[in-house]
């Protein structure tokens, strides 16, 4: 069994001598494969190990990362998929060429009182009904979320080639986004994040990366 880590151009830079990885080449693409481990369980250690491999590849070539756990019985099976979907993979690789993914979250800061408190007080004082308080709280959440989107997302998307955004899932998370940023724009992007964080003390802006372009591999 072999695991497929990423798809890259062929020909390309040679893999390091001591590598356990192999290239399965078909036309202008190659799949980077490695022997599948015996362990089936998914663990943080396993994920980081996989990630390290893909990021090492990223150092000197463009990669289209493949979802974790993509496994083939052998190299010819992997090769068949590269042939069948070669055009699609080549187009995707072109889209992410020379770029990395940066992950950003905007979280409402600890200093900001949660809307529920204000609403609960008003309800307790008989000023508004519970239903009205509920909808007003939702309005405030929506406004905070749009504001985060505007003040943080707009300037960042201007530096990026592409983006994917969505609502947050953590409590207080107003925005969760992934940006496809050209390698030579990463410093500008990071500096912009830093500047936005200083300008908006009421928000927590997290930024992790650079990641391989996972969120842009299948668009």
């Amino acid at each position, binding site marked *: 069994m072999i695991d*497929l880590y990423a798809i890259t151009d062929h020909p390309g830079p040679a893999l390091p001598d001591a590598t356990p990885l192999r290239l399965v080449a078909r036309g202008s693409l190659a799949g980077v494969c490695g022997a599948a481990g015996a362990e089936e369980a998914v663990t943080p250690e396993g994920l980081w190990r996989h990630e390290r491999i893909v990021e090492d590849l990223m150092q000197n070539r463009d990669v*289209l*990362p*493949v*979802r*974790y756990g993509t496994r083939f019985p052998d190299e010819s099976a992997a090769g068949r998929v590269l042939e069948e979907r070669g055009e699609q993979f080549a187009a995707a690789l072109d889209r992410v060429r020379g770029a990395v993914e940066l*992950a950003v979250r905007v979280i409402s800061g600890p200093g900001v009182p949660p809307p529920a408190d204000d609403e609960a007080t008003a309800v307790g004082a008989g000023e508004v009904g519970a239903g009205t308080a509920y909808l007003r709280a939702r309005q405030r959440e929506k406004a905070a979320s749009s504001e985060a989107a505007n003040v943080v997302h707009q300037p960042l998307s201007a530096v990026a080639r592409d983006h994917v955004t969505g609502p947050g899932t953590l409590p207080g998370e107003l925005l969760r986004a992934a940006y496809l940023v050209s390698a030579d724009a990463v410093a500008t992007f990071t500096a912009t994040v830093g500047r936005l964080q200083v300008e908006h003390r009421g928000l927590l802006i997290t930024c*992790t990366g650079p990641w391989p372009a*996972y969120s842009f591999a299948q668009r």
Partner: protein
Amino acid sequence: MTTVAEQDVALIDLIDRLLGGGVVIFGDITLAVADVDLVYVGLRALIASVATAREKNMLPEMGDAL
């Protein structure tokens, strides 16, 4: 030195990417992990199984759910 919260957020970012992103290949392949892509992969199988599940009285009580 990263804190636990920082490690976890970075790990969640990693999980979102490795298990939620990347090129997806289905078919004649053994997947060590598979996203619960009900629409993409399992829905057809799920719908086909519903009739069987109903016969075997396996379905949850949804009647007065709302």
